[in-house]
């Protein structure tokens, strides 16, 4: 098995505020990795660095064995950002338009082909929002919006899906269906990295868990992780070392 993501001794700071310190971890292809840690522990930053959206101050990141900043197959990456509600909800976009964006990088400057449109329809069906295709995405519920963004990643035929707290503001029932969908995608061979607050959810769905708080406290199989005290150490160090940290710092 090869590595989808390889993070090698990565450090990052905003000004003189350290965010990540010497983090190394590998995400093998086809795995479902949960990324947990207290608020402000650098989870989102690490995810962005993994995807090549941000450059680390030191260290190196490889995506599918290519340095992340030179990785050009953008269509292989799917990212659903925290509160993925792009354009702050004022720009009218139909669900189908959003999902079709998944094909844009494939098409370049040429027109979309029938095959592109077919893939979009399949992605809409796969996440169960084909009946919402003509609706304005800004008028949908949080869960439906998240499905739209997942469908976009599917339409781009991504084989790596990075999700940053995808179910914040989503009702419990939709959450269940959503995680069911992720399990299906993972079974189909898509690598998933997910930041999630709900440790119960993570332990139920993820194969591996990485616990982060500036440094990587543990990264191992879910079953083994529960036996370690990494969680306690990561969260307590947050409280003791940085009582003044704001909640939304990540």
């Amino acid at each position, binding site marked *: 098995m090869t590595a989808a993501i390889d993070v090698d001794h990565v450090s990052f700071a905003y000004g003189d505020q350290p965010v990540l310190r010497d983090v190394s971890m590998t995400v093998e292809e086809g795995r479902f990795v949960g990324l947990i840690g207290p608020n402000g522990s650098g989870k989102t930053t690490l995810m962005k660095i993994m995807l090549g959206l941000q450059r680390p101050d030191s260290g190196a990141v490889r995506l599918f064995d290519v340095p992340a900043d030179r990785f050009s197959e953008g269509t292989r990456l799917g990212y659903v950002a925290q509160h993925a509600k792009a354009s702050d909800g004022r720009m009218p976009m139909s669900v189908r338009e959003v999902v079709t964006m998944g094909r*844009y990088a494939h098409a370049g400057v040429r027109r979309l082909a029938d095959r592109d449109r077919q893939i979009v329809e399949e992605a809409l069906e796969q996440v169960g929002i084909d009946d919402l295709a003509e609706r304005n995405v800004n008028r949908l519920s949080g869960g439906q919006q998240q499905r739209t963004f997942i469908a976009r990643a599917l339409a781009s035929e991504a084989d790596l899906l990075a999700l940053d707290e995808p179910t914040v503001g989503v009702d419990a029932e939709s959450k269940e269906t959503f995680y069911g969908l992720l399990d299906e995608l993972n079974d189909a061979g898509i690598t998933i990295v997910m930041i999630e607050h709900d440790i119960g959810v993570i332990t139920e769905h993820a194969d591996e868990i990485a616990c982060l708080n500036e440094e990587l406290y543990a990264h191992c199989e879910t079953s083994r992780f529960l036996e370690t005290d990494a969680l306690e150490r990561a969260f307590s160090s947050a409280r003791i070392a940085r009582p003044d940290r704001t909640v939304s710092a990540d």
Partner: protein
Amino acid sequence: MAIEILQQRPAVTRATLGGLLAVVIVGTFIYWAFPIAFDAFWGTTCTAIGSWLVCSTFLQHGFTTGILVGIAAPLVGAYVVNRQMALIGEALAHTAFAGVAIGLVVGASIEWANYPLVFALAAAILSAIGLQYLAVKTDAYGDVPLAIILTGGFAIGVAVISYGEGIAFGRELHSYLFGNILFVPFENVQLMVALTLVVLGMVALSHKQLLFITFDREAAQLARINVWFYDMVLIVVTALVVVAAMQIMGAILVAAMLVIPVAAAMQVAGSFNRGLLLAIVFGEAAVLGGIFASYYLDIASGAAIVIVAMLIYFAAVLGTR
């Protein structure tokens, strides 16, 4: 980036050849075919309707320019407005005005350089590139760089005019400031056609990328779309539209055509593409309604167009409540 471009050499060669071919075709069309088509169209319309409104050469020029502005401005505005860059047109128009001022002063002493709109075009494109640089440098499309370029550009224009005080600018300067439907010389109509074709071509080629970046910048970056390059494309296209529309809207009012029809359309539409088409429909309604209002009520054309556009916007807001 240079390495990437070299690696894509066949694509670059094709794009360059395609671009040159497009320039030749557009150029030939505008110099040879367009005047014939123009005369044929308005000749027929004039014979059919027989009103002064369509038979006057002045108004024929004005209508043609107006209709083209009504297409190009809302088209580009749709991306600009949804990126919260609504005032960028205003800033570019004010620097374009500085270009006009320089052009008028130069043109007054050098006969063959008497094309103020070409100077306006150069000034607008230069300031577009400058704005892009400031936006990257200051890390946001904040309104501070906009305010600086806007007022700074206008200041240069005023300075140049006061410097060349001996020259009688008169009506020409006034028409660039406030717009005048009756003052569009035929070569400016031709320039307008060229600009519209260039804008349509560029948007047709880059619509997908522009839309992606507008809606979700980070995801576009992730898809490894060259965000910087397409930002530049959009801002340069905006500069072209602003200069084109300046003749009938005036430097001070030109941004309205980029913003108001789009704002009205986005209020009503449920998808971007429908919003885009509707914005062009609203733009045309504002231009034609404005020109008629300007003629019957004897008010400035630019102002009339903006007022009609504003009425459409209010109707759209009230209609969706």
